[in-house]
């Protein structure tokens, strides 16, 4: 999914640049940049259950956008594409937190014999690809650029198989955590404003503020089974919620091409 997002944005940017250069009456402004910052939760993703640690997402996180490409296409309107990496808790930290939570719940009556995880990606980054349109207000020393974007956020989740032995008995239980959704990629929308201060005619430092939203639709199922009697009880943990976050960050923009009117040339 991550590769798909990357290639999609790359392909989209190339097509757009080619189309713009061939059809518009002026050479578009082409800018590249990067930024990073902090995202604060407005609605919390965590529900206070052990399954919070099975999902590779975090309420408060640092983000980085190593690639931002933008084109001013017509007057002050343009399009932008970016790839964002959200830094979430690593696999080992999530595993430790999950194990601690399980131990708190079961240590009074059970011994934890074995814990096996089966997961997707186990990295510390969540990838988000975005495409947006913006309006830029250019002044001699600064610019302000409000932008609306859509994108795809790709999360990872883990499964767990745990074996418990009841203290002072011959009974062994299995505890299985599994996510029921086959896809954990979410459509995102972002509203952002970028304030840029021009240090030269090509280079500007920027201050970003944004509001982002996605609708999480993730369900974890917990199966608790007595392996002797085969008695099974199941419980579901639903993460059906609108996740709203505000973020702020700093970055830079570098102007690759300047706006110049195309001249028609005729070859005699």
């Amino acid at each position, binding site marked *: 999914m991550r590769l798909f997002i990357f290639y999609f944005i790359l392909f989209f940017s190339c097509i757009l640049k080619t189309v713009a250069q061939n059809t518009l009456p002026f050479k578009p402004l082409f800018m590249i940049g990067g930024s990073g910052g902090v995202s604060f939760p407005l609605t919390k993703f965590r529900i206070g259950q052990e399954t919070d640690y099975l999902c590779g997402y975090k309420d408060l996180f640092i983000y980085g956008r190593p690639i931002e490409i933008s084109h001013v296409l017509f007057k002050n309107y343009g399009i932008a594409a970016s790839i964002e990496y959200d830094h979430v808790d690593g696999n080992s930290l999530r595993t430790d937190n999950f194990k601690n939570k399980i131990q708190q719940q079961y240590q009074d009556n059970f011994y934890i*014999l074995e814990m096996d995880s089966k997961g997707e990606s186990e990295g510390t980054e969540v990838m988000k690809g975005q495409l947006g349109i913006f309006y830029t207000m250019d002044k001699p020393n600064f610019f302000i650029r409000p932008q609306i974007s859509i994108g795809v956020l790709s999360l990872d989740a883990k499964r767990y198989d745990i*074996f418990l*032995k009841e203290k*002072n*008995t*011959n009974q062994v239980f299995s505890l299985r955590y599994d996510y029921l959704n086959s896809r954990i990629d979410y459509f995102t929308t972002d509203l952002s404003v970028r304030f840029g201060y021009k240090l030269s005619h090509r280079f500007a430092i920027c201050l970003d503020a944004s509001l982002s939203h996605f609708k999480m639709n993730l369900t974890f199922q917990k199966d608790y089974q007595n*392996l002797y009697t085969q008695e099974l009880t199941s419980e579901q943990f639903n993460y059906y919620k609108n996740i709203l976050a505000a973020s702020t960050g700093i970055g830079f923009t570098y102007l690759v091409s300047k706006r110049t009117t195309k001249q028609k040339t005729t070859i005699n």
Partner: protein
Amino acid sequence: MIKKTALIILLFSIARFIVSCCYCSKIEFYNYTYDSVRVYNIDNSGPAAVNASDHVLKSAYGFVLCPYTTAITQRSPSLPFSIESAYATGKCDCDTPEYIGTSKDTIASIVITTNNDFDATHPANSDVSDLFKIYDHYAYSTISEYIKAETFHQTNCLTFLLMVPPPAPGNQQFSVEVKMKDGRIFKKETPIIQLI
């Protein structure tokens, strides 16, 4: 011509000698038979079963049945081109090989009887096999299910867990009868244990 033939035979013999000296078999195949069995009580109240002392919680009682076997024949793997290994030379620096045994007789049934009154429906000398399960890697099986399974290795020790404890505490002893398919029967009693 005679010299050439003699030279070829000599070279072949030298090759056989070198190969036989340096061949290390990683797997040794053998056949075995049952000699006897032994049983001992276990205390399964902790995270893993341990040898029981003189008393055990009745809800965490079990015993282990281990067969004693004897290797009766050794089957040596043959080498290509009919070159045989020289096991008697002892000159090769070989690691300890893995032994894979094949049982010449298999277990037909295992019956557990109680020597003392167990509960109202199981007086002394009655069959209590249905109160036990064989436990192996997070799976419980009945005796018949387990010994018929393809994964059952005849040389492994079997862990029997008492899944229905007696209603009252007291001393208990169980007799375990292992019937082989060739008709032989091995019978052992667990040490007397106080179930509390």
